[in-house]
């Protein structure tokens, strides 16, 4: 289903899945308003560096990809928007 839709829908669906995980796993809530997609996860104190590794492990398992150390930058992982865009790029290749 994910890959049968348009690029924009794919990115939105990826964002939704990542956000669900972050909300449930780091903020213990399913309240969508608790986190904006552009919020900084690291500087905002929502996810620390150990949490980022946990998030990366989850993404690798959920999307059957391997995320190499050189991709593990704040630019790729510091917000739901950034993670969604990174995943969209990885899954498109």
């Amino acid at each position, binding site marked *: 289903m994910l890959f049968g839709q348009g690029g924009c829908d794919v990115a939105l669906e990826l964002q939704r899945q990542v956000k669900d995980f972050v909300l449930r796993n780091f903020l213990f809530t399913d309240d969508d308003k608790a986190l904006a997609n552009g919020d900084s996860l690291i500087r905002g104190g929502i996810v620390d560096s150990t949490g980022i*590794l946990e998030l990366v*492990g989850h993404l690798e398992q959920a999307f059957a990809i391997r995320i190499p*150390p050189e991709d593990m930058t*704040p630019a790729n992982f510091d917000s739901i928007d950034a993670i969604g865009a990174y995943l969209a790029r990885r899954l498109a290749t």
Partner: protein
Amino acid sequence: MTRLDWNVLDLDYEQEATRIAARLREIVSRTLHRRGLVVAISGGIDSSCSIALAVRALGPERVFALILPERDSNDDSAARANILAQHLGVRVQTHDIEPALAAIGCYEQRDAAARRALPAYGPGWRMKIVISGGAEGRINVFRLIAQAPDGEVHDVQLGLAEYLQIVAATNFKQRIRKTLEYFHADRLNYAVVGTPNRLEYDQGFFVKNGDGAADVKPIAHLYKSQVYGMARHLGLPERVCAAVPTTDTYSLAQGQDEFYFALPYRSMDLALWALNHDVPAAELARVLGIGEAEAQAVYEDIRNKRRTTRYLHLQPVLAGEVNELDLHA
């Protein structure tokens, strides 16, 4: 623009030693209401400097030194600690904590996690954890470096669960040591000295309820280079002053910079000072001879470690107010 140079870390050591000693006397007598100080000494520069300041404050008869080796600590560390205790004229007791660590599962749990990451790992191997990424502007990841009995070195990235278990098991060392420090402190009605320098304190390089636990931390405001300077000023033995900073926690020798800090300690000191005084990254880069982007990454790594380790500094957080206790008096 602030012009940065290495002299910013210069200090009037005699004046500062006098000030710390006076403050220690005041803290121990009027705030903690104890009769002396317990200091666990590793042979490293921080605990050596701390106990020397404790002796300067209270005299050798009111300072009790502990040497707490275990399977993975270097024999030379305990030798240096003994030389220091003799030099200062304090009472000293050595307690090998290996049996306690073995009984509680420290080595077994650590090795089980290492084997999950590297199945060949087993008896006779030595290991350490290194951290990488932060200085290059990436998110830090952890690697296991293990040396087989035949000398071959293996280097594997650690999964989060394995990393956490190795650290959790290793933290037994600092916590068992602290248990012994408080046994003697309670027995003698003394207070316990924590020995972090400013770099360690600021960046959270300590184990909560382990080496992070203490009643007073006399050098937590001094940069590591200043601790070396203070040790020399106090006339500590040359073997102590020349000690290379290591964690002395893993069976393979591990520099503090490769485990935790982005740069060697002198450069980290300067970077931390520069960040604390709003010096632009380009100016730090000029003095350290590195690129501006790398200096910026070092700044960000410092900020990130502050965020990540903030909880280590926190007292237990209450869910409601208890205002009757005047804890800041």
